[in-house]
């Protein structure tokens, strides 16, 4: 039987317009334009470059987190790995180690931290939520063991500059530039390569992926390791950016990262989402926060706005769909096309 010719692009176009990540991108544009018009100090390169720099760690960690959530796993220990990396950096620097030796070591530590998560999840079959709540406590605890109440400061200026200065001629700080590069890379992997297909399949239907010869455990393990490595490296950036190594660095950041990923339209049940959405989500949270601060909106209200944003971003597509159904326009295949997004 030949494909039904009448079923062409019209419904696809309509569903695309109300896709979650599109809404978030639209909101981002609204915030940016509104901010630029209404708040003089907002669209200055000075302010933007600061706002972007302020986002660096959350943005960086959001990348592997996206991959994990698409694969229907989660890593709550990221902020603790960041803290542990920061503490270790401080301790070793204080002990007279060279930065050039410490950083590779931290990458290894991050990889090991991720490996522990990954092994517990893949070998024992434990839910990652439970495992990483445990390692979240463990790694944060190790950070305290490493550095205690000390706060190590006075890191070399040239490295501190790398974490705070902008790429010459642009308002983009180096850490954010790194994020842009990694985001492009991640997007390519997730949306264009076989590995990306495999990650989506794992998240959507793990058993079927396993039957299709996809090395489910290996891929998941790898994703946890990447998450650990990126978090550890984010710890380096964090430490240099603030010029302060402390055991409590990045405390509570995991929820901010997850909020950004969810805002970007990634389904926590796995198998759905786009990296573009996540980038928009990260930027939206960051720029909106910056804008609200500039306008002297109380921090409590910022929290309310973030919450409402999350709710609205998931609610809008459903309401639009419901309204459309009420109008008896055939529902198209909302679930179908939102699940099979290409790059």
């Amino acid at each position, binding site marked *: 039987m030949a494909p039904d010719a009448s079923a062409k692009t019209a419904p696809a176009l309509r569903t695309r317009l109300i896709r979650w990540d599109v809404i978030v991108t639209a909101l981002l544009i609204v915030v940016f334009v509104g901010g630029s018009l209404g708040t003089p100090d907002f669209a200055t390169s000075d302010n933007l470059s600061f706002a972007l720099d302020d986002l660096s760690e959350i943005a960086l960690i959001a990348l592997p987190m996206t991959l994990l959530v698409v694969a229907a796993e989660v890593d709550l220990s990221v902020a603790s790995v960041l803290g542990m990396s920061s503490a270790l950096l401080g301790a070793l620097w204080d002990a007279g180690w060279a930065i050039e030796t410490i950083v590779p070591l931290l990458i290894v530590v991050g990889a090991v931290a991720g490996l522990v998560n990954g092994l517990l999840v893949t070998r024992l079959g434990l839910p990652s939520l439970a495992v990483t*709540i445990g390692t979240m406590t*463990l*790694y944060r605890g190790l950070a305290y063991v490493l550095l205690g109440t000390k706060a190590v400061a006075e890191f070399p200026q040239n490295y501190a500059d790398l974490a705070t200065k902008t790429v010459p001629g642009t308002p983009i700080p180096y850490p954010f530039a790194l994020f842009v590069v990694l985001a492009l890379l991640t997007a390519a992997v997730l949306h264009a390569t076989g590995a990306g297909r495999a990650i989506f399949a794992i998240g959507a239907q793990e058993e079927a992926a396993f039957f299709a010869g996809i090395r489910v455990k290996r891929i998941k393990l790898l994703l946890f390791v990447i998450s650990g490595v990126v978090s550890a490296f984010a710890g380096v950036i964090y430490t240099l950016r603030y010029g302060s190594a402390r055991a409590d660095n990045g405390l509570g950041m995991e929820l901010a990262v997850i909020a950004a990923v969810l805002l970007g339209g990634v389904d926590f049940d796995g198998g759905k989402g786009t990296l573009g959405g996540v980038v928009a989500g990260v930027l939206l949270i960051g720029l909106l926060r910056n804008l609200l601060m500039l306008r002297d909106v109380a921090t409590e209200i910022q929290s*309310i706005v973030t919450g409402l944003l*999350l709710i609205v971003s998931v609610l809008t597509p459903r309401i639009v769909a419901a309204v459309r159904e009420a109008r008896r326009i055939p529902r198209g295949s909302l679930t179908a096309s939102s699940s099979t997004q290409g790059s």
Partner: protein
Amino acid sequence: MATTTATTAAAGPGDAGGRRLVDTVLRARELSIVAALVVLVGVTTAVNSSFLSSQGVKDIFLNASILALLAVGQTMVVVTRNIDLSVGSVVGLVAFASGKFVLGHDRNIVLVLVLGMAIGAVCGLVNGVLVSFFKVPALVVTLGTLYVIQGLDYYWAHGQQINAADVPSSLLELGSGSVLGIPYLPLITIVVMVAVGYYLRSFPSGREFYAIGSNPDAARLAGIAIRKRILTAYVVSGVLAGLAGVLWLARFGTVVADAAHGWELKVVSAVVVGGVAIVGGLGSVYGAALGALLLTTIGSVLVVLKVNSFWQDAIAGLLLLLAISVDRLLSLRVTRALRRRNARHGA
């Protein structure tokens, strides 16, 4: 625990009954937590006998009761394959709100409890309506309401504080007093836990919560009122969070806005440690409450054992991982043993 006894009591006579007994005991997830608790308490008491003194035991139960109460509510939600991350914020809001309410007045305790639970119910209702009627992902919604409720609470409180001196003594008595030597707090928790546990296990509508979590599509086809149940789960979770908020005020007396800040993950880990499957359909409130007890006990034990403050977090994390890993390994073993035996008996 209660699950075990109920099943075994009803089991038929003869070989099948015997086998069922063994199966049930082996399958009871609560057992490994109890074992872990026994080991933990045993070791600690051996080192420091005052741990099992009446004050020590009382403290552990007092500490665990609020977390356990929240875990019971969370279980209802998680069993339906959803999650409620807003509980910590609700506790904070209610603790502060009821503090404001009693401030300088000698309010009737019942009135305070009702008010607290009503606020909790409203929060739960919002979550429930969003999740069940609009079918939006629970994690996103409740993360959103976490921020919103927390924001409202902080905005209202903004640096104010409720002091124990301003809280009526009848309310404080609820937090520290006892009947027949049993403090009120754990008593309340146990009553709530048994009631919810019994309902979920023994009533047809209770089983529907498990059915929904186990396979939502099938639940729809079976004609189960999914929306109603999910709404109920969230409202119960909200009400219990509200109750917990009032108890928080009663127990601690001093309340600033961020009471129970960050407790959402604590509650979730109690539930998960207690053997409730995060993907729904599986687990009991007894397990969840035991999980809360285990987590709290780990916290107390480390202080009592004079573990260096800096090591406490690390060891607590390690113990948590150990608990879930051992539990998992045991259950894998049991499954394998059951497969081999079942095959021999013929399916």
